[in-house]
């Protein structure tokens, strides 16, 4: 269970911004993680992710941002982790928190509450329709009507419906790169999850597709909580309600978007944003 802390917005002991407890979707306390090859570890990260907002994790490569994302949906179970400690708490809509790091946790159910979009569009070698219903079918859903409903709804939310509604049975691999990525976004929405994690979702996409994805995200955060790793500082600035700067496994600074990008407190954050390193 989360320990009590400030119940109103303000700053904590490190000078970091803190949100209201009952506004948090994910609470991360003192998370440390080490991979067997020592890469991309996390060092004592503490951050709260408010509900129905876009929280952006930015910083140079190797900072631990992707690692953090993968902790939230326990995808790092697939990798070689030799140490992990701390608390990662996910709230449901009655404000009950579950510890994601609990070894007894039903990770399958977790992955239906937390969806993920990867950096490269990875479509499954199935039709467009089956890509979208995959997760639901694996969960045991076979009602055709409900599946088709989910397909249409998620494609609408990803702004892809009009482009593919007549060819849902075509192989997903036949779509263009931008369309495939929006398909991956739709796929993560099929479950109606609570949190959506996006790991550099627009790297490799042309500006128009990037724009479409970014505006979808703006719409989506009304329903879901978004955690985004942007592929550029500019994208971070465009999309962030809240932003956290990561450097070599440490979270350096965290606060509302306007504050971080216009008036960062830490010297390192400022240097990175101004492009002095990266």
């Amino acid at each position, binding site marked *: 269970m989360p320990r009590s802390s400030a119940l109103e917005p303000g700053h904590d002991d490190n000078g970091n911004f803190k949100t209201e407890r009952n506004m948090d979707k994910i609470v991360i306390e003192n998370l440390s993680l080490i991979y067997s090859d020592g890469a991309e570890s996390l060092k004592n990260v503490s951050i709260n992710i408010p509900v129905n907002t876009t929280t952006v994790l930015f910083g140079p490569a190797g900072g631990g941002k992707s690692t953090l994302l993968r902790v939230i949906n326990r995808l790092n179970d697939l990798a070689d982790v030799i140490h992990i400690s701390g608390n990662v708490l996910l709230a449901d809509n009655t404000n009950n928190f579950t510890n994601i790091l609990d070894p007894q946790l039903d990770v399958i159910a977790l*992955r239906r509450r937390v969806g993920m979009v990867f950096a490269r569009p990875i479509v499954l070698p199935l039709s467009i329709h089956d890509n979208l219903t995959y997760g639901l079918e694996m969960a045991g859903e076979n009602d055709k009507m409900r599946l088709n409903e989910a397909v249409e709804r998620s494609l609408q939310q990803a702004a892809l419906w009009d482009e593919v509604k007549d060819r849902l049975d075509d192989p997903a691999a036949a779509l263009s790169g931008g369309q495939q990525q929006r398909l991956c976004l739709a796929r993560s929405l099929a479950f109606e999850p609570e949190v959506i994690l996006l790991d550099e979702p627009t790297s490799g996409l042309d500006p128009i597709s990037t724009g479409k994805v970014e505006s979808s995200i703006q719409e989506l955060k009304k329903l879901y909580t978004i955690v985004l790793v942007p592929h550029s500082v500019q994208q971070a600035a465009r999309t962030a309600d809240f932003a956290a700067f990561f450097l070599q496994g440490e979270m350096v600074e965290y606060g509302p978007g306007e504050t971080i990008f216009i008036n960062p407190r830490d010297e390192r954050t400022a240097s990175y944003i101004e492009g002095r390193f990266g």
Partner: protein
Amino acid sequence: MLTLIAVITVVPIIAIIIHIFMQGMSAVSWEFLTSFPRDGMQAGGILPAIVGTFFLTLGTAIISIPLSIGAAIYLAEYAPENRWTRAIRIAIINLAGIPSVVYGLFGLGLFVIFLNIGTSILAGCLTLSIMTLPVFISTSEQAFKSVPHSFRVVSISLGATRWQTIRRIVLPQAQPGILTGVILGLERAVGETAPILFTAAAFFLPQLPNSPFDPTMALPYHLFVISTQVPGMPIELQYGTALVLLTFIIGMNILATFIRSRARARRQW
């Protein structure tokens, strides 16, 4: 100079095929393929040998394929990188290297004598199954490993279990590779004589086998017999038998190549 060497390799292969074809053509007729040998093998056809080879191959496939695919799935998808897994791999490599006659010896000792199955199709199939296991396992494992890892990651992130991922994504995608491997492995089983020498093969049977516990004639063994044990054996019939055997083998080879290239063209990644 290298070209010369390559030519030295190629010319005999083509020469062998053409030679057998030309010499054997005359003997191969519908009657040849569908009737029994007569006059102490010196006339008639090779039907029981063809049927026997068919049953042996079928039995081997039935026994070996599920076992091999299971083992390949384990190695490719589940097995951790530890001592035990290395032991399995070493075991497979060694199974692959055992001479075929030693398999025959083993089959004789275990299946025919110890388990008292007698000289039979079953004993032959069991022996051939263990022999083809390593080929099936390694080609299947290769097929699984060639499916991009990213599919598995995505599938897991969507809440699927490891087995669901294998069943729904990995297996279907690996299927052509597995099929190719199966055909090539069975191709080997079709042509092998030593493993069935003491476990299944009979010199001459007046009728087709009735049950898996019956011994049987087989094409490679038949060719061996008529070319070494039957004095006065007409040469065209020998070539005819060789031609039939070769046709099966090359046919399977072509089939496997066809499946392989078609799959490569239709890949969705």
